[in-house]
């Protein structure tokens, strides 16, 4: 198990509401997205698979090229592929609208 932290200080637009999607099931993950108290975006990832920090960074960086909300995002991952992670994040954005 590994815990990864990423900050995105440029994402400052307000998030409309908090959102929970997904499940900590095999090959899946849960995403908890809520308005950030300090007006900047923060991501905390707890993953069951060690050593994939760079891939997580790439996936989350790419997500934040289009997502500009000051959200605190908690990800609890149980071995999801990068594609699955991207889909769950997109789903969270859809539900938050």
């Amino acid at each position: 198990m590994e815990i990864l932290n990423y900050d995105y200080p440029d994402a400052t637009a307000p998030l409309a509401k908090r959102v929970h999607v997904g499940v900590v099931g095999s090959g899946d993950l849960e995403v908890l997205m809520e308005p950030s108290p300090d007006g900047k975006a923060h991501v905390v990832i707890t993953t069951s698979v060690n050593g994939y920090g760079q891939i997580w960074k790439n996936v989350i960086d790419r997500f934040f090229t289009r997502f500009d909300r000051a959200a605190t995002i908690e990800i609890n991952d149980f071995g999801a592929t990068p594609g699955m992670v991207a889909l769950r994040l997109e789903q969270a954005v859809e539900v938050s609208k």
Partner: protein
Amino acid sequence: MSSPVNAPAQDWQKFLARKSFIELSAQDRATALLDAGSGRVILGPFDRLKSPWLPQQGIVAQADDGVVLVRGTIDRQPAVVAAIESDFQGGSMGEVAGAKIAGALEMTLADHRKGIPTRPVILFETGGVRLQEANLGLAVIAEIHAAIVALRPHVPVVGVIAGMVGCFGGMSLAASLCSHLVATKQARLGMNGPEVIEQEAGIQELDASDKRTIWSLIGGEQRFAIGQVDALVEDDADAIAAAVRAAFAAGVPATPRSARVDEYLAKLAAFDPTQAPDPKALRAAWGKGA
């Protein structure tokens, strides 16, 4: 046994039009049983009641520990549904997950003592105790048992086993303590799961990959046929919701199944334990015919 393959055309349409209950998440399952629009989650993921024990063993915890509690109404009466998310750790009962269910049942009992007729429903989708949490998991399962027994004289405690995990271990005892148990054909109810039996007693005792045999022994249809499940329904959210409403409408049963000790002792005494009955013989002896 009706099969959709041989069913008439209108049954096909009904089969395709149904909303599968098994495919729903725990929260959607719970909401589907409540009056439309009445459900609200209590102690949800943002309350972060997680397992403190899993991360210490290198296992990722889930924000709601795999149990979703939803309050709402059933036929305009106050209700609470506890749903187990089977995708997280096989629906296993850890300390927090079990305490959420036990707490919900104890609050329901407190409601009844104040004259509030809250209706409790438990959606069992669980392999039983979470082995990583050992005795703490067992202790909360015992609390769930005690709460069901305490609540049973006040209101029917309705259990639902839909599938596909089934209901095993200490939680199978909880299911059997319920006043009324609803199951689908896909459901399984048993103390030890097939893999455990194969591992402990050998493949000559039970081949865990033989689905037909397993469902013939512990499947929802067999459990219904031998009187251990009260309602057998299709995997259809509306049908399951209707069965739950009917269970509450029927009221508290005179004698719960688990209190009919003499009846079951007599049934067991009629069998020679060295000659285990096959599923058909058990149906003939205990139930509604083969």
